[in-house]
């Protein structure tokens, strides 16, 4: 359970940092009035939707940390036989990076108000994300054809489960991206569109980060890395 504890420590650190700016040592029973000198404490200047997405991403991060924790715990048993990762996953990773880059371009364009570039960015991001999903399915097919079936070994089960979960999250993101694109083509208000594009980009970057982490875990580099760290420490 160490992965999830590290993740929660990060969350706790962030929460602690935020709380430390909220004057938790105030003595509210002595302070009447509008508290004009700390109006900044009322609420964050960030758009509410972004904070909502941030909280949601913390939950998603928690979910994948738990999958990873379970993976590491099962990996510790002696009969662990990891499956060989298809080379196709490298290509998929590249496609997903491209998708994130395209959305980032859309964000930049939306801030400058270049509608054509926004549309181009959104379309590219959507298509590359679909290509990523197709690539993941092909990787699954390669593995099943090579005899690495879902139920034949715990390592296989974990591989299919974690990649499927990640894929489902991308799929959910595509729904949001679709709605944003519909707005981009039907002439939504510029500031509203900018916010939607930024939200999409935030989600995309996060899922890319999650993918890079679980790719490292599934490929075994994360375990090697932890091993090296442990040796350095002891």
């Amino acid at each position, binding site marked *: 359970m160490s992965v999830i504890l590290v993740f929660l420590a990060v969350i706790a650190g962030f929460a602690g940092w935020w709380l430390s700016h909220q004057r938790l040592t105030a003595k509210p029973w002595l302070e*009447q*009035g*509008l508290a004009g000198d700390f109006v900044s404490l009322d609420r964050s200047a960030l758009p*509410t939707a972004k904070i909502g997405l941030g909280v949601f991403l913390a939950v998603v991060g928690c979910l994948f940390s738990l999958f990873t924790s*379970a993976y590491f715990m099962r990996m510790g048993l002696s009969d662990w036989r990891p499956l060989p990762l298809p080379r196709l996953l490298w290509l998929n990773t590249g496609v997903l990076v491209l998708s994130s880059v395209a959305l980032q371009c859309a964000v930049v364009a939306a801030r400058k108000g270049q509608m054509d570039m926004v549309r181009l960015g959104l379309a590219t991001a959507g298509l590359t994300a679909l290509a990523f999903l197709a690539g993941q399915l092909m990787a699954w097919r390669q593995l099943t054809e090579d005899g690495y079936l879902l139920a034949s070994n715990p390592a296989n089960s974990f591989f299919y489960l974690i990649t499927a979960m990640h894929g489902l999250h991308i799929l959910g993101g595509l729904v949001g991206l679709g709605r944003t694109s519909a707005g981009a083509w039907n002439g939504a208000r510029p500031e509203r569109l900018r916010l939607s594009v930024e939200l999409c980009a935030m989600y995309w970057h996060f899922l890319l980060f999650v993918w890079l982490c679980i790719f490292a875990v599934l490929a075994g580099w994360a375990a090697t890395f932890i091993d090296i760290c442990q040796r350095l420490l002891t």
Partner: protein
Amino acid sequence: MVDVTPADAVPPAEVGEVELYHPHSWWTKYVFSQDAKVIAVQYSATATAIGLVALVLSWLMRLQLGFPGTFDFITPEAYYQFITMHGMIMVIYLLTALFLGGFGNYLIPLMVGARDMVFPYVNMLSYWVYLLAVLVLVSSFFAPGGPTGAGWTLYPPQAIMTGTPGGQDWGIILMLSSLILFIIGFTMGGLNYVVTVLQGRTRGMTLMRLPLTVWGIFTATVMALLAFPALFVACVMMLLDRLLGTSFFMPAVVEMGEQLQHNGGSPILFQHLFWFFGHPEVYIVALPAFGIVSDLISTHARKNIFGYRMMVWAIIAIGALSFVVWAHHMYVSGMHPYFGFFFATTTLIIAIPTAIKVYNWVLTLWRGDIHLTIPMLFALAFIVTFVNGGLTGLFLGNVVVDVPLSDTMFVVAHFHMVMGVAPILVIFGAIYHWYPKVTGRMLDETLGRFHFWVTFLGAYLIFFPMHYLGLMGIPRRYAELTDMTIMTESAHHLNSFISIMAFIVGFAQMVFLFNLIWSIRHGREAGGNPWRATTLEWQTPHTPPAHGNFGKELPIVYRWAYDYSVPGAKEDFIPQNVPGSFGLGPSREQP
């Protein structure tokens, strides 16, 4: 030290107006409503309905335990199904849903001075997914093989094997699906509760001016958002084990002389995931109760809460600590002695912030102007019960004490006291307290007092004797113990007594339900602020609050939530939205 701004110089609230959704038809107003208040009532009604099912299940269990062999239809299989469903419904579908979905939805927007939740549409979806989860759960009663009988902890491998009721039938599948749905629905609601507290607060409502109810619900929601994914992961993996033959949790098992196809799974992995959710869950239920009880005591003792800052810090500390104690549920599963030592230590450390809270409640009562209203009675009963259950928790937190007691009725007594009876008492108190705001009428006083005394004394008569049964070594989870030498004559009598008390207490709940329904039309008119309370929900222009909560302009907050019996003030309470110049004696300026 305080700059009191004159009232006329204050500009209107700068909070950006939310785009309120305005319902157009009866359907969108009362059924598919996006108004947090309607959603709160929907959540509460659904949770109460499914809670009644769990109440009846507990009666059936008590029939079997109190009068073994008398009722033929309660087979051992049926008994396990009753236990499982009773536990799961009470913990998740009743307590979690009622505290967060019910009270959270109703009180957060009103108490922080918002018009509604920040994402009303998602909030509505949250309820409907919750309802779907409940329906899936209920459907398992009618599925072939009946509901699962795996125990509320659903430990594999037994949960998905042939001997367990529902293990190879629909029971376990529906249970896991229902939990997955519940978690999805809760996440939608939870996002709303958290972000509304962060972003929906009206002008002047700093975090340190929030009523403790909001602090409790807020912290509990944050914890739930981080803890429920563990249950989600466990459920998904077990569902795959059951349906697709994977081996996440299933080791190589020989069942009835036949080797199962599973191989190489780890049942302990499930226990870690389950309790990583399961322990925070205790505090997900307890923290809202702590918060609500603080407000009830302060209001009905007409005195500011003692040690507000400490109360807030204690809530945060309990929330954080509760994530590093989960393995104390697994002492009997076997672990490295150092781990046992670590988890025993963290478990006992939680007693410190909890004790701070108890002392502060008692010190709030000290020299207060205590009104023994029904909400106050329930709040006082909560303190006693919680201390009682908490103390046995100190016993069980130690490895050497837990191991012999773990499988006995002592554990049943402990957790029913601390997370069954105690939070339920708060829920009752809170309903008596806020019912006038929700409906505009008071609950009937006589019926309420009857309900309180029967419930409080009855719950003690049910669960206190269980401690003795546990110390005698009577095991839990067993459907039938008649032939064991351990079951002495006196233990039998005690069991029958507990069962009879369970029926009486259950009957009192029917009286309460009657009161709830009867008072909607026939209760005494409450007026806007019957308890003369300070928090914003009592200051709404309409009672029940209209759509949008606060009329034309949002209230502006000038003070904390506990200005009761302020020296020199005209009344014994000053609402949060009354400007600073009102009724302030110079003595208040001294620290």
